[in-house]
C-alpha cells in the first residue's frame, strides 16, 4: 500500500511540468474582517469588453479561499441571483466609486447588509497558450495503435483581483497573480503528458494572497 502511494506520488511529480508563479499586491487602504463578514469573488464580464474571466478560475479562487476557513465566501452565481439585475454584464458597476449610487437603492443596501458583504473581489484576466511546437502522429492500423513524436506548449496565466470595500465604497487594493509554465508530451507508442499546472498555480497563489490581504497582512 505504502509502495503504491509512493509510486503514485512520484508519478504525479514526474508528470507535472514546471511552473513559475509571481504574486504582487498593492494596498490602498487598510482591511479587516469581523466575524459574520463575507466576501464574494466575481469574474469580470462587463461590456463592451469581449474578454471574460474563466468561470473555473473564479470558482477555483473562491473554493481555495473558502478552504482557508478564515472568511465566508459567497458563491458567485448565488450572489448574482441575490443582487439581480445589478451585477449582470449590462449593469455591473465598473469602479468602486459606482457603489454609492447603487447603495441608494434601499432594497440593495438591505441585501448587502443581510449577506454581511464586506468586500467585493473582481477578477480580470485569462490563461493563454503563448507558444507551441513539435509534432505528434497517431495511427490506428490492423496491427495496433500508437503515437510517435513530441509536443510542447507554454501557457501564460495573468490575473488581477481588485478588492472593493463595500462599507467605504473605495478600492482597498489589487492583487495580481502571474504564472508561466511549459508542458511536454513525448510519445513512443504511448503519449506521456507532463502537464504544467499553470492556471491552478495562479489560482492558489491568488487565493492565498487575497486571504493575507483581507486579514490586513502583506
Amino acid at each position, binding site marked *: 500500500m505504502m509502495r503504491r502511494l509512493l509510486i503514485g506520488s512520484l508519478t504525479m511529480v514526474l508528470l507535472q511540468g514546471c511552473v513559475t508563479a509571481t504574486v504582487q499586491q498593492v494596498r490602498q487602504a487598510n482591511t479587516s474582517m469581523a466575524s459574520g463578514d463575507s466576501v464574494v469573488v466575481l469574474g469580470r464580464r462587463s461590456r463592451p469588453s469581449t474578454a*471574460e474571466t474563466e468561470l473555473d478560475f473564479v470558482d477555483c479562487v473562491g473554493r481555495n479561499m473558502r478552504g482557508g476557513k478564515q472568511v465566508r465566501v459567497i458563491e458567485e452565481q448565488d450572489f448574482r441571483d441575490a443582487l*439581480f439585475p445589478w451585477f449582470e454584464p*449590462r449593469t455591473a458597476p465598473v469602479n468602486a466609486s459606482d457603489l454609492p449610487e447603487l447603495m441608494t*437603492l434601499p432594497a440593495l443596501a438591505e*441585501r448587502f447588509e443581510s449577506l454581511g458583504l464586506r468586500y467585493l473581489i473582481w477578477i480580470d484576466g485569462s490563461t493563454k497558450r503563448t507558444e507551441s511546437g513539435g509534432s505528434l502522429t497517431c495511427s490506428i*492500423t490492423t496491427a495496433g*495503435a500508437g503515437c510517435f513524436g513530441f509536443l510542447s506548449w507554454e501557457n501564460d496565466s495573468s490575473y488581477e483581483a481588485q478588492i472593493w470595500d463595500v462599507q467605504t465604497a473605495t478600492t482597498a487594493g489589487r492583487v495580481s497573480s502571474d504564472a508561466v509554465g511549459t508542458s511536454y508530451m513525448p510519445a513512443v507508442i504511448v503519449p506521456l503528458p507532463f502537464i504544467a499546472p499553470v492556471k491552478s498555480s495562479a489560482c492558489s497563489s491568488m487565493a492565498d494572497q487575497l486571504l493575507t490581504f483581507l486579514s490586513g497582512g502583506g
Partner: protein
Amino acid sequence: MVLANAFRRAWFHGRRLPGRALLARLLAPLTLGLVGGCSGAAVEVPQEFPIPLVEKLPLRMGLLLTPELTSYVHEQTLEGSGDWRIELGSAQTPMFRNLLAGMFESSEIATTAGAPGLAGVLEPAIEEVQFSTPDQTRSDYYEVWIRYRFQLFGRDGTLVADWPLAAYGKANQRHYGMSSREPALQAAALAACRDAMAFFTVQFRSVPDVQRWLAAELAGGSE
C-alpha cells in the same frame, strides 16, 4: 443471428484478433461516431430566473403571454454544421412572472388586455432570434441575440406604450469542456434571457410612454 454472424465474419475476417487490434477496431467506430456527432445542437433554456431586486411599483399588473411566445422555437440550419434548435418558449412564463413579481406590488396572468382591476397589462413578444457559433465568428463564443417587443395596455385595454428591446448573451465554449456545443449554446441563450430581464428592469421607467402612464397611475388619475 445470421446477420450478426455475417457481420462478425466480415468485421474480424474470421480470425482471432490480438488485443491491440481489437482495441483499434473498437476505437475506429467510436472516432467516426464522435466526428459524425459534431453537427448542430438542440437546447432548451432552463426555467429558473431570479426575481429583480428593485423598488416595487404600487400597482397591480397583468401579464399576457401568447401561445406564439410560450412555444417559441428558433430553428436554423447552418451550412457545414447541421441543424440548430433553441427552445426559448418554455422559459418565457417563469421569466416574465419573476420579472413582474419583482417590479410590481402584485401581478397575475391576464387573458386579455384591459382585464378588470389591473392597472395595466404587459404583452411581450419575440420578434427575432439570431445566434452565432465559434466557427462562424472565429472566436471562443456562442452568442445569442433576442429582439423582444413589449406592448403595454392601460386599464381600458388601449395600447399605451410599444417599444423594442434587444437582449444579448454569450458563453465561452472553453468553459464547458470537450463537448461544449450544447451547454455553451444553452448558457448563451440563458444569458440573453437574463439580459432581457435586466434591461427591461432598468429601462422600463425611462420609456417616455410608460413614464406618462406611470405618472397617471401613481397619481391615481386613472382609478
